[in-house]
């Protein structure tokens, strides 16, 4: 039970922790030295984490009802919708981190709200599974202690991975950090888009498209590296054509922001 809890919860926490680190590292590069940009205060990030945890609890509570929507595929539809809003939020965040500051100094509301939307929904999606799992475990008294210990360890590893990624990123020069950070955000948006396609296919709301390749022999999705890459950039051993197309499209959307282009100038 202990190990199951560690793996399960780590998988859920990792994606949000890594995303948060990259967003923080990018934000750290904003400021007077980069034309038209301004840093967001850490309050925004803290608020986003809190709303995310509430969102996760709410989504877990609503899950039995949501699951039955649309002829039992409500979960896929709502999750797909959240993924799309996250992509839109990431785009808006990258756009407004910069353009907001071109105007006279004032509260950085646009970029901050987009950040809250992105982080809240990321934690809501993944965190709901943790709430459901823990809630299920509570019914089995002997399993509670190992599961909670596992959850604690997973939380520790996930947060450490996030901190490690953050400090690795900000260790580079400003321009390199910004470039890597923004590329990672673009890959993350691609990941969200590919997962949207997968969810809609699973729900039969989208037609099946052929599998493009199979790299299971090179790197399985359930290996540690595979899981890390899945969380960070959405590694998939057997992607479909529609997944690949949507991945590239969302990446290009993020790459079209002035901030992204400016970082490569």
């Amino acid at each position, binding site marked *: 039970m202990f190990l199951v809890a560690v793996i399960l919860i780590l998988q859920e926490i990792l994606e949000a922790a890594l995303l948060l680190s990259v967003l923080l590292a990018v934000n750290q590069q904003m400021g007077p030295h980069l034309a038209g940009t301004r840093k967001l205060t850490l309050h925004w990030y803290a608020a986003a984490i809190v709303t995310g945890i509430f969102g996760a609890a709410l989504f877990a509570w609503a*899950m*039995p009802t949501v699951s039955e929507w649309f002829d039992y595929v409500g979960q896929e539809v709502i999750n797909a919708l959240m993924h799309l809003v996250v992509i839109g939020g990431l785009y808006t965040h990258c756009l407004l981190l910069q353009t907001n500051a071109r105007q006279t100094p004032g509260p950085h509301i646009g970029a901050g709200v987009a950040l809250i939307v992105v982080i809240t929904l990321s934690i809501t999606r993944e965190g709901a599974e943790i709430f459901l*799992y823990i809630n299920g475990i509570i019914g089995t008294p002997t399993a509670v202690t190992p599961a909670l210990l596992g959850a604690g360890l997973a939380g520790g590893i996930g947060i450490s991975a996030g901190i490690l990624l953050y400090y690795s990123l900000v260790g580079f020069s400003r321009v390199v950090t910004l470039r890597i950070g923004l590329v990672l955000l673009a890959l993350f948006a691609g990941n969200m888009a590919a997962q949207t396609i997968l969810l809609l296919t699973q*729900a039969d709301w989208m037609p099946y498209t052929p599998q493009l390749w199979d790299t299971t022999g090179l790197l399985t999705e359930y290996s540690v590296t595979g899981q890390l890459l899945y969380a960070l950039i959405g590694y998939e051993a*057997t992607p479909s054509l529609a997944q690949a197309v949507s991945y590239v499209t969302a990446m290009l959307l993020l790459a079209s922001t002035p901030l992204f282009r400016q970082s490569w100038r």
Partner: protein
Amino acid sequence: MLIATSARAAAPELTLVIRDHLFFPSTLEVPAGQKVRILIDNQDPTPEEFESYPLNREKVIPGNTKTVVFIGPLQPGEYPFFGEFYPKTAQGKVVVK
């Protein structure tokens, strides 16, 4: 949407029951090259997560709840799946013929 609706009507349905953290049946036989609708009926009071790497499927099923997962069309072969919340016992496979 029209395509999806007409395809849904044509997809054969199979039922997979979860009881005492086990899948019944643990082997699902599925025709090759066809989309299949799997109705998963979780009869346990605890939630479970249906997961399969080769099928690219992942879905939480709250306790005492039913849900649906579409799979395929698939090539002949074996596609293992498991319950991520209770993987020691909840194991099964889809056999495509």
